[in-house]
């Protein structure tokens, strides 16, 4: 936990890349290189799908963004549980970071899905069970961020956010399993064994290169991307806490 905190005055004063902990610098560089490598694989290494054409390559970002969001939202659950157990503010910061980064990655997942759907389903959006549950998931976490700003008492806010963050994971789980429990979805089930829905539109056969590209991109986006972004967000939250502490100190004089 101490590695996440930045209370050193010199560090705060400099604020730039030089102020980052060495591990964060390495992690940020590794994440940038890995994402670029994953993108290279998706664009130039994996073959072109004969039925869908070039747009199928969006799938490598679409699925990977969801895996990243899932990990970030798990961070929110972990942070929430640990905050309720320990009342350590750092856990609340991790929960908040998970919600914000997870929301951004979920929006990326939704937007890339819409762009893929336009030529494949001939529509930007349809109220399909998977799309609807994904939209509900996004709105649930957007509400988490908005509701946090609505509670003035810090302790109350953290307790409320912890409980909300733990409960909100149900929308993520619902989004994950809905293509397997609702027969009326047209969203293809791509990962894992499933009885493929006969209504699914846009499913594709995986070549060996495609499988490898999906595996590598998912691994990068579910580990390096959420961890690096959440670490940066936690450091930002440490500054917010510092500002609040200074304000309280000045007002109480």
């Amino acid at each position, binding site marked *: 936990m101490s590695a996440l905190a930045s209370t050193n005055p010199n560090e*705060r*004063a400099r*604020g730039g890349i030089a102020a980052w902990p060495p591990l964060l610098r390495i992690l940020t560089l590794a994440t940038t290189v890995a994402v670029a490598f994953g993108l290279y694989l998706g664009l130039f290494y994996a073959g*072109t799908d*004969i*039925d*869908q*054409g*070039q*747009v*199928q*390559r*969006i799938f490598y*970002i679409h699925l990977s963004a969801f895996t990243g969001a899932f990990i970030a939202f798990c961070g929110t659950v972990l942070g929430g549980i640990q905050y309720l157990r320990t009342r350590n503010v750092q856990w609340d910061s991790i929960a908040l970071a998970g919600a914000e*980064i997870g929301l*951004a990655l979920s*929006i*990326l997942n939704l*937007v*890339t899905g819409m*762009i*893929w759907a*336009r*030529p494949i389903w001939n529509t930007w959006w349809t109220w399909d069970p998977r799309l609807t549950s994904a939209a509900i998931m996004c709105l649930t976490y957007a509400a988490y961020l908005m509701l946090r700003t609505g509670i003035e008492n810090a302790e109350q806010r953290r307790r409320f956010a912890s409980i909300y963050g733990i409960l909100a994971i149900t929308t993520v789980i619902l989004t994950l399993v809905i293509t397997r429990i609702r027969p009326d979805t047209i969203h293809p089930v791509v990962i894992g064994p499933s009885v493929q829905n006969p209504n699914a539109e846009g499913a594709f056969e995986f070549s060996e290169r495609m499988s490898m590209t999906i595996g590598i991109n998912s691994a990068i986006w579910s580990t390096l991307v959420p961890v690096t*972004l959440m670490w*940066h*967000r936690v450091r*930002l939250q440490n*500054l*917010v806490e*510092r*500002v609040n502490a*200074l*304000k309280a*100190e*000045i007002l109480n*004089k």
Partner: protein
Amino acid sequence: MPDTQAYLILGLAATFAIMALLIGSMVIRHRNLLKDIELLEQLKDENN
């Protein structure tokens, strides 16, 4: 094979835009918070 390259480019552009918005907002908030801390510490010193 259908020509869907324009949608791929749109998808990539959207990806870069969303990630740039996220990272950019964090950078801006970071800068603003550093300024706030500097100002508040000045105020605190003046009050002492």
